């Protein structure tokens, strides 16, 4: 008979749970779920060695273990600290943690441009959520925000270095998911920046996953750039037969148009495992090239947390009212105006454009009409 593993008992915010030895406090808290879970900007469970950089997951350890119940003197990063038997952790019940987290958010926002109205990540941005909960209304920073020279990361990925919070997730992705790594972090301190070595475009088959991994809008999809806001698109689970990846993706649709393809995300905003149990990274072909509805087999609408802005206008379990006017009258009612004949909006087939729409596209449209 296999030897039974000894489980560690941890108490996080007065909730006790038994976890396997070697689990980090963050993962133990995720097993409990809900408000108890500390936020994480840099830790990513699917990426080895990630975490320990952003300091948003700081927690207070009120008692180290049963053997040594002294509290830890400083707040610890929960993604990098493993649980001990009898550990008592305070997250939202500790004022010190809340205070520290407010400070961390203020630091993260020092150089962040807060151009959410322009940013394509708005609506699914972890920094937005975090600053909504912990941020201050105004900045106390009096100096100029740092700026960078523009780097071109090829035709598919858009880099906005000013938005970067240096979480290193994309560097680990490039290192671990794709076979060769061609981008890393240059310089140090305030000057650190993500860059491709020797201006080489990233041409690996799985490099598109850096977009999903990025917690802010520093790396975004160029094929979706400025096409629509996230909350006006409809997330749909779909799959296809792909020889490179699992083909299990999430489509972001507007009407019958596929505007964006991403990997499926779990409740922590991380890439979900596929039905076969592997991490659900998707390949560049699926992400950037398959923008036709005929490329995909639709499985159904994605479950979205109803507190998310993405769920606005999406109704679950609605029964559409049965139109009886035509049946009673014997003909369809006369429309005094069909808005689609009059409106000039939504005339461009956005899914057919490779990049963002520009004034050129709209000029051509005028000639066409």
């Amino acid at each position, binding site marked *: 008979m296999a030897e039974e593993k000894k489980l560690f008992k941890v108490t996080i915010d007065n909730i006790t749970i038994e976890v396997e030895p070697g689990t980090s406090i963050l993962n133990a808290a995720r097993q409990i779920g809900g408000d108890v879970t500390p936020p994480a900007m840099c830790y990513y469970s699917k990426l080895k060695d990630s975490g320990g950089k952003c300091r948003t997951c700081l927690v207070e350890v009120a008692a180290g273990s049963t053997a040594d119940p002294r509290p830890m003197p400083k707040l610890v990063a929960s993604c990098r600290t493993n649980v001990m038997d009898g550990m008592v952790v305070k997250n939202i019940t500790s004022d010190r943690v809340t205070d520290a987290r407010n400070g961390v958010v203020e630091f993260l926002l020092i150089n962040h441009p807060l*151009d*959410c*109205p*322009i940013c394509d990540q*708005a609506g699914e941005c972890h920094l937005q959520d975090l600053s909504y909960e912990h941020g201050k209304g105004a900045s106390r920073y009096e100096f100029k925000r740092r700026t960078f020279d523009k780097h071109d990361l090829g035709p598919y990925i858009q880099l906005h270095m000013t938005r970067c919070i240096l979480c290193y997730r994309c560097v680990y992705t490039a290192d671990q998911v794709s076979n060769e790594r061609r981008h890393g972090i240059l310089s140090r301190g305030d000057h650190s920046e993500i860059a491709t070595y020797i201006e080489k475009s990233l041409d690996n088959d799985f490099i598109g996953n850096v977009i999903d991994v990025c917690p802010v809008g520093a790396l975004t999809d160029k094929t979706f*750039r*400025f*096409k*629509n*806001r996230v*909350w*006006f698109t409809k997330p749909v689970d779909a799959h296809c037969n792909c020889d490179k990846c699992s083909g299990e993706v999430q489509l972001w649709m507007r009407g019958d148009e596929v505007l964006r393809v991403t990997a499926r995300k779990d409740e922590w905003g991380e890439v979900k495992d596929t039905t076969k149990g592997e991490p659900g990274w998707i390949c560049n072909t699926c992400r950037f090239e398959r923008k036709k509805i005929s490329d995909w087999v639709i499985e159904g609408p994605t479950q979205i947390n109803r507190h998310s*802005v993405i769920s*606005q206008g999406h109704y679950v379990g609605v029964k559409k009212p049965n139109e009886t006017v035509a049946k009673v009258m014997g003909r369809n009612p006369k429309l*005094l*105006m069909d*808005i689609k004949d*009059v*409106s*000039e*909006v*939504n*005339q*461009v087939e956005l899914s057919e454009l490779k*990049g*963002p*729409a*520009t*004034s*050129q*596209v*709209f000029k051509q449209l005028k000639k066409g009409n």
Partner: protein
Amino acid sequence: MQLTNRAKQVDRKPLNIAEKIYLPAVLKGMGITLSHIFKKKATIKFPEETRPFSPVFRGLHILNRDEEGRENCTACGLCAVACPAEAITMDAAERLPGEEHLYREEKYAAKYEINMLRCIFCGLCEEACPKDAIYLTETFAPANYSRQSFIYGKDNLVIPHPKENPEAFTKAKGLIDERKAKANQEK
């Protein structure tokens, strides 16, 4: 069945002499009529005269420009998501090099439409706007014969250029700056 105690018995007595000659009643009526000549008029001579608007009046929308004449709107979609009547739609586009004098940010609204038939003039779009771009002014949506003309595009909404047409710009802006200053004061 009696519902209330306010029912009045109709007086069917024959008229007396004063009532029969009608003159006192006529004079009494004329008195009321003539007294109105000296009272304040309830009407105004529209359109020569207009009534002052309440400071919180919400009329037709404008899309604002900054002092250099660049459009403020970045097509962030917050007005559209705030709109309870779903009257606002837009298409975003990327600013090309050389268009910096037209649009303030790297993204802008290439098309912007407000369906004035749907709009309920609640002002939530103005409240939601992070870029100081949409404002409700002190003008009514004018009447029209066709429904099509109530779909307001950018040609109807964008404020005149402050440098090329400063008079029209200040007129279109109306009381916006005063309102803004007041709101800031209250903060």
